[in-house]
């Protein structure tokens, strides 16, 4: 039974899930930004790859943290995330088209494609979590 007598202020705790998701997004943006800063010349791929690996690791940590969360409003999470996934997939597909249209090939295209894929997963998680974390669900533990 939930206590509804006091006004609920939302989930005010600092969450590592949000931290990991934003960290992953930062690394992905930096990884793409390094390649963009060199355009149209070929960029050294090492720094971009480093940030990309960092982004992927943080995304995995974010998903792991989310799956371990107890009493989480998964329905609310998926209500938001499914529409955001649709949006991010459309935007990512459009950017992928622009990269290929511009003649990007090889390692740079692979990095950009993975950056887009990570972003397309990261943003729905971030937005879905931002809404679902404040939802009160009955304690099942």
């Amino acid at each position, binding site marked *: 039974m939930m206590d509804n007598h006091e*006004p*609920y*202020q*939302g989930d005010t705790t600092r969450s590592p899930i949000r931290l990991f*998701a*934003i960290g992953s*997004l*930062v690394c992905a*943006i*930096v990884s793409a*930004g390094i390649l*963009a*800063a060199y*355009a*149209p*010349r070929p960029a050294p791929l090492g720094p971009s790859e480093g940030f990309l690996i960092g982004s992927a690791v943080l995304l995995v940590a974010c998903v792991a943290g989310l799956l371990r969360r107890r009493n989480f409003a998964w329905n*609310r999470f998926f*209500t*938001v995330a499914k529409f955001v996934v649709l*949006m991010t997939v*459309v*935007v990512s597909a*459009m*950017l992928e*088209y*622009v990269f290929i*249209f*511009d003649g990007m090939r090889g390692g740079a295209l692979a990095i950009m494609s993975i950056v887009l894929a990570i972003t397309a997963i990261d*943003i729905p998680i*971030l*937005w879905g979590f*931002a*809404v679902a974390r*404040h939802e009160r669900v009955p304690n099942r533990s």
Partner: protein
Amino acid sequence: MSEFVGKQALEIGDQVIDRVEKAQTGPIVNLWGVGVACLAIVVLIVTIAEDWRWGLAFFHVIGGGVWITIDLFMGLVLGPILARMSIPARMELTRRLMPKLMVIMPPVVIATLTAGFQLARRIDLLSVPYPQHWWLTASYIVVGIMALIAYGVMEPANILVLLELRKPQPNGALIGKAMSKFIYATATIGVLQISTAIIMTKIAS
């Protein structure tokens, strides 16, 4: 007379309930607006595919102008006004404003950035040597920070407010916190937009 007034009041009450129920169960955003946004994206794709210079300039200039204006207006004009409004008035304004921004902003941002990059590539601006190239690098950094604020803070707050307002009993405290985050994020992006305007005019001059 009193019967007539009573009947009218009942009708108005029914209309209000009907509108509230529609607002809570219908789509969050206007579907016509989504259609127009999709059409704009299709025209943008065709413009890029055809390498149509006027179209690229149009999308970049109009999109950039709309983006900067909305951010500055939201953050520096409407934000302080919202902060001084009563909670019900703020909620009413938010309920009507946020869905519109949700439709307008994504295509505006996509059009500005992709058309801008294509335009810079077409007029050979991307291959300018350093130190002039630093202006381009600076613009990428500013866009990166703005994207981070928009995706990490602004839009999650926007969606939280929209969904909370659809509940039978919206949580005022939660909406207030999310709205203040949204307004601060918009104001920060507005200030960053001024730096973008400086960078863009420097590149163009």
